[in-house]
């Protein structure tokens, strides 16, 4: 069988292989030691399978590829419609890349209810991939909500002391915000009789719906609130630090690495893709919030005594860059935003893994408990440094490309955006390097820290891929942009038309 023959099936497979793995895990005896290995095999197999997408992706074609479109329910008219463009394809690969790493870091740290843990973890993978590949709004909403339950359970069952509070807060924030999106989706269905993304887009842009302009305001806001909470955009970010601090390491990796990107992906796909006029109209204050998020997140990260909280706030800051990039509506800005999503997924995912490894050894995240760790843990310190530098945005590492493009887009849109956002880059260097200094440099103050063991082979296995990815993404971004760039051009197409009309008037 040639690889081409797999094309019509591949998205269905990539979406549901983890579910199949989870179902098979159900059959394992409760205390079987093979549960972890099996989960790892499924996750790795899934990653290899997902590599089919970039290998077979035709960068010359615009629009969605590998699509399947089968009727599912006749009333309401719901289709099983999947497809990816250059943006969502790489987000799928990011997901499948992070999941096996998450399995590796949970190897020892999850001791109880191991079977349930990996079942939830694999189900979460299906839901996350489903969000990125769905082209039917109903299906999208289904996966969106479905991702919520395993994540909340992972936080609530395997987290730290205040896990229940964090899990409930996470669930309610996202759930409450997404009912507004549901209302908007139902409204669109009632008007167009379809859930299909492309059909709805056509109807909205072709102005086939009567009196759409006032309704579109509300629809835009309905989608926006759901995504803004997920990103999270200032001032809706308050669930994030709690969720991160309490989540188990693998949960944090996926939360920061993938779940937050569901929000920015949604903003790009739905808010910009379906409502270009409203997006343009609302852009000033959204950009304002994004810039506040960048600076505020960085300043709060600076003063955090807790390592995990610091990384969590750094996410608020970095995701602010992504939102800024999207709402500059420039090719460079949106390209950069998509790239920053991928880069942040890799480097923040790695930071959370590193923090988790430290926690396994010392059972604390307090920065003041460490100091001078470079002496007992040289290998660990090296990995940490590489990832920290990637996160700061050092040239030749992955963070640089995205931030650079976003900033150049921001300057093009309005110079003040660029100036303010650029200060965020400086801040991120401050808080990350200062944190690194306090944790690794100087003399070892606490006696316990003298004998902390360095990382094991299994942990290295989890860290190497992220370090390599950070480097490769930094030196060879064209591998990614060859697919991202055309997709962004298509996504910005309606905006161009919108602009043309404004000018025409």
């Amino acid at each position, binding site marked *: 069988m040639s690889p081409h023959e797999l094309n019509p099936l591949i998205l269905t497979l990539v979406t549901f292989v983890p579910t199949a793995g989870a179902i098979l895990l159900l059959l394992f005896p409760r205390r079987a030691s093979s549960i972890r290995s099996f989960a790892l095999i499924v996750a790795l197999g899934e990653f290899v399978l997902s590599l089919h997408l970039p290998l077979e992706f035709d960068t010359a074609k615009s629009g969605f590829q590998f699509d399947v479109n089968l009727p599912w329910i006749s009333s*309401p008219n719901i289709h099983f419609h999947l497809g990816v463009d250059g943006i969502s394809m790489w987000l799928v690969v990011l997901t499948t890349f992070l999941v096996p790493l998450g399995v590796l870091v949970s190897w020892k740290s999850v001791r109880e209810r191991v079977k349930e843990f990996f079942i939830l973890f694999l189900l979460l993978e299906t839901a996350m991939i489903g969000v990125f590949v769905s082209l039917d709004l109903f299906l999208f909403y289904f996966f969106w909500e479905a991702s919520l339950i395993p994540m909340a359970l992972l936080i609530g*069952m395997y987290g730290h002391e205040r896990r229940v509070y964090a*899990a*409930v807060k996470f669930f309610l924030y996202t759930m409450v915000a997404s*009912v507004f999106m*549901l209302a908007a989706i*139902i409204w669109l269905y009632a008007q167009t009789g379809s859930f299909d993304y492309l059909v709805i887009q056509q109807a909205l842009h072709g102005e086939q719906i009567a009196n759409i302009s006032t309704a579109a305001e509300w629809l835009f806001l309905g989608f926006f609130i759901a995504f803004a909470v997920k990103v999270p955009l200032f001032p809706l970010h308050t669930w994030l630090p709690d969720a991160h601090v309490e989540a188990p390491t693998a949960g944090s990796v996926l939360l920061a690495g993938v779940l937050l990107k569901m929000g920015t992906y949604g903003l790009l796909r739905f808010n910009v893709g379906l409502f270009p006029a409203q997006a343009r109209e609302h852009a000033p204050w959204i950009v304002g919030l994004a810039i506040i998020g960048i600076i505020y997140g960085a300043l709060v990260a600076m003063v955090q005594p807790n390592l995990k909280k610091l990384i969590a706030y750094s996410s608020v800051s970095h995701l602010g860059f992504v939102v800024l990039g999207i709402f500059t509506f420039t090719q460079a800005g949106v390209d950069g935003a998509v790239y920053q999503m991928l880069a942040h997924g890799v480097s923040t995912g790695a930071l959370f893994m590193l923090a988790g490894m430290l926690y396994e050894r010392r059972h604390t995240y307090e920065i003041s408990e460490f100091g001078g760790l470079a002496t007992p843990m040289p290998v660990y310190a090296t990995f940490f440094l590489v990832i920290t530098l990637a996160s700061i945005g050092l040239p030749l590492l992955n963070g640089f490309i995205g931030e650079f493009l976003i900033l150049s887009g921001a300057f093009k849109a309005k110079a003040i955006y660029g100036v303010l956002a650029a200060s965020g880059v400086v801040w991120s260097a401050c808080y990350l390097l200062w944190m690194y200094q306090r944790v690794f440099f100087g003399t070892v103050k606490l006696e316990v820290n003298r004998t902390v063991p360095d990382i094991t082979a299994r942990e290295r296995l989890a860290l190497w891929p992220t370090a390599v990815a950070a480097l490769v993404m930094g030196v060879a971004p064209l591998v990614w942009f060859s697919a991202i760039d055309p997709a962004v051009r298509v996504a910005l197409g309606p905006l161009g038309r919108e602009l043309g009309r404004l000018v025409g008037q």
Partner: protein
Amino acid sequence: MIPAEDYIRLLPEIVLAVFGVIVMLAEPLLGPRASRKPLGIVALVGTLAALVATVLQADNLGPAFFSLVRVDDFSVFFHVVIELIAAVVILASLEYLDTQQIHAGEFYALILFGSVGMVLMSSAMELVLIFVALEISSISTYILAGFRRRIATSSESSLKYFLLGSFATAFFLYGVALIFGATGSTNIQDLGEALRAGHSSALVYCAVAMMFVGLGFKVASAPFHVWTPDVYEGAPAPVVALMSTAPKAAVFAVMLRIFFMASAPGWFWLVWISAVLSMFIGNIGALVQSNVKRMLAYSSIAHAGYLLIAFAAAQDIGISAAMFYTAAYAAMNVGAFAVVSHFAAAGERYVGIDDYAGLGRRYPVLAACLSVFLLSLIGIPVTGGFFAKFYVFSAALKSNLVGLTILGVINSAIAAYYYLRVIVVMYMREPEQEEALAPISPSLGVALAVSVFATIYLGVLPGRVLEFAQAGAARLIK
């Protein structure tokens, strides 16, 4: 001379009544301390036979007994729903009665008699017959509510339900009398013709309001909901499973017939206000409950509110949305109460939310079932509850009831919190007591399996049931 097919059109009612009588006759044959399981099985066979009779009926639609009853797709739909509820409730009670040491076979007979009244309500075309059927169903449930008679709350529940319930049926009867005065008929078909011809005096409006009070009480919609939490708390858990779903489905069927088939005027704002009040009172009330049965009582008030949204929507889509909602709500609520009644153990000791701590670890299957039902009550996709809400909200949006829909959506967000709390307690809290629960009996297993299957089926492939409901709706407004 009454033609033979008239009897076929009443066959499910006849079958249920006959089996009820058989149960009563067989009851004295069992010793006073013997388990009543055999009688339960007889009753179960009765409900299944009634289901078969309903299927027979489906090929034989039409009016019967001088248009006193009318069998159409609409009534068949409610027959199936109510008979399935009765069957599942009986399955869940088999074990419950033994654990609670209730040795009275009348329990099953009363469920069957109650079902006679309920199914009759969905096919009755005559307001007086509806009243009689309503009384048959109500009186049976009054007694069932007081079945744990050594327990004060159960007797309180029964008495309260009885007193307030009689009051409410009196309102309904008053309404029937007034509408007879205004139009000279109590047949829904004739009423419809008279009202459509422009007979809408003040008397008619009064009559509609009166009937709405009586029926609103039976479905526990605000402001006629006050009895619900106390009655649900005291009544035996399987009985609550029955009375929170089956009589409500029947009364909603009556409301649909009166409002849409008879084109009763002036109910739009009654329904609008009652829907909004029910949703807010139900959901906010449920937030603060610490007893699972009370919480589900408030939740059922809220669900009556969502259902009334469908009444406010345009006819064709509103009716089918309401019908689908009753079916989905029945599946998830009966299932939830089946778990509650098993977990309550002897004397219904464990009905506090805190008692559910660690259920996920101790009884994974039970906890997983309850989670499915609760997620469905929240309205998470791939459960029946999602499509139920979905159809109702989209019917409302299509009828331009944007305000009502937004209030509904806000309420479903509030509701997520208290359902979720139970799931959180089950999975994320450590158990305080480690008392072993009786293993799940085969009958309860079947009851749970049927409920889970129905909940998921309605959530994954809602098409067939919806099409059937649409056919019923079309029949109703023709």
